[in-house]
């Protein structure tokens, strides 16, 4: 009755058919793309450990974490080397266009021994859609200091539903630490995320895709 579905292979081939909007529109829409944080949850941000601040015009948000740390080596639990935190964002795309740029900034602190490595990765997907896009930023030890990564995405390319339909965009961030060649018995390496900032800027200088 049920069967598995394989979509992967189709991705690259059809890029052409997706290439958005060759017909440019002159007047930008009055409305804006907005984003609401619906849920924040994951092993790196269990209930009560994350706070969300949203901009008053709903074009952006900040999530602050109090306990989002992945660690490996001495004193670390055997499953602590990977933590995740998933944001479910309700992205509202108004009728009549769209083109915009979404940006996410991830910031934190890392202490990696020589030989150890760390990874901050964000996995983006739309609810109800199998396709996942991962954007990763590796770090190599020795490292001891703040880190900051930025992902930018073409929202028009993400929006596949008919215009005017709201859909939840999931951003699943993760931190991974590997002890690698470092002395895992005597030293600890860790990577922490302090904040995630997301925003949608409605950019007018690009081409418009008009809803039909």
């Amino acid at each position, binding site marked *: *009755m*049920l*069967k*598995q*579905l394989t*979509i992967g292979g*189709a*991705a*690259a*081939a*059809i*890029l052409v*058919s*997706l290439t958005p909007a060759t017909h440019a529109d002159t007047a930008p829409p009055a409305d804006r793309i907005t984003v609401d944080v*619906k*849920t*924040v*949850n*994951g*092993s790196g*941000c*269990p*209930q009560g450990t994350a706070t969300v601040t949203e901009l008053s015009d709903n074009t952006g948000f900040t999530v602050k974490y109090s306990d989002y740390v992945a660690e490996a080596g001495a004193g670390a*639990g*055997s*499953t602590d080397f*990977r933590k*995740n935190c*998933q944001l*479910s964002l*309700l992205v509202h795309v108004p009728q009549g266009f769209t083109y915009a740029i979404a940006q996410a900034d991830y910031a934190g602190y890392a202490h990696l021994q020589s030989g150890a490595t760390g990874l901050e990765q964000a*996995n*983006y*997907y*739309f*609810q*109800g*859609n*199998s*396709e*996942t*896009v*991962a*954007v990763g930023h590796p770090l190599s030890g020795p490292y001891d200091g703040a880190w900051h990564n930025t*992902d*930018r*995405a*073409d929202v028009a*390319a*993400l*929006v*596949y539903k*008919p215009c005017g*339909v*709201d*859909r*939840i965009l*999931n951003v*699943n961030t*993760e931190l991974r630490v590997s002890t690698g060649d470092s002395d895992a018995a005597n030293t600890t390496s860790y990577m922490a995320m302090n904040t995630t900032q997301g925003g949608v800027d409605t950019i007018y200088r690009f081409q418009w895709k008009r809803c039909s």
Partner: protein
Amino acid sequence: MRRLVVAAAAIVAFFATTMTPGHAGLPTNPPPDKIVIDIATVNGSGCPAGTAAVAVSPDNTAFTVTYSDYLAQVGVGSSSTDFRKNCQLNLAVHVPQGFTYAIAEADYRGFAHLEKGASGVEKANYYFQGHSQTTAISHTLNGAYDDNWQNTDTTDVAQLVYLPCGESRNFNINTELRVNAGTSDPTKTTSFMAMDSTDGSITTTYHWAWKTCP
């Protein structure tokens, strides 16, 4: 950095290729209403109270459940019952008058670290409340493995939905994660499988074919 355009490209590809097949002779106009779903309860050893969060789409055709503590493990640091965890989603499904045809899809995403010789299974049981018939789909991962994983199950709702048109009935999705140490050494290593999220959707707006209620 990979551009997210790839995601949309695949989506178009998906609908263009997989979903295009026309069914000649069937009504061409889809019914105005849609099958809608709501999550009634979420519970299990992998998703005790306070560890799961639910985000339902505004039109109630899709949902995302995220977990903060859905992890099955064996080996160092594990207790004897940790090798299997489950989480049951109880969904209220409303099928409006006029049709009973749609495609349901579930996506499971997570991370696994499996030592060489160990294996992990993600399994989902689908069934309507009050019916003994269940459909199970499982996906196995074999170690050595150390990365994210993702599984997709799809189903034709017409085959599942044999309830009277216009009625609602609860639908259960019981997921589980299992890890087996196999030939790996559980006294020195740990193998685990974690689920980050479960997504479900019922697609009735992209119609292939419609079946009208009598």
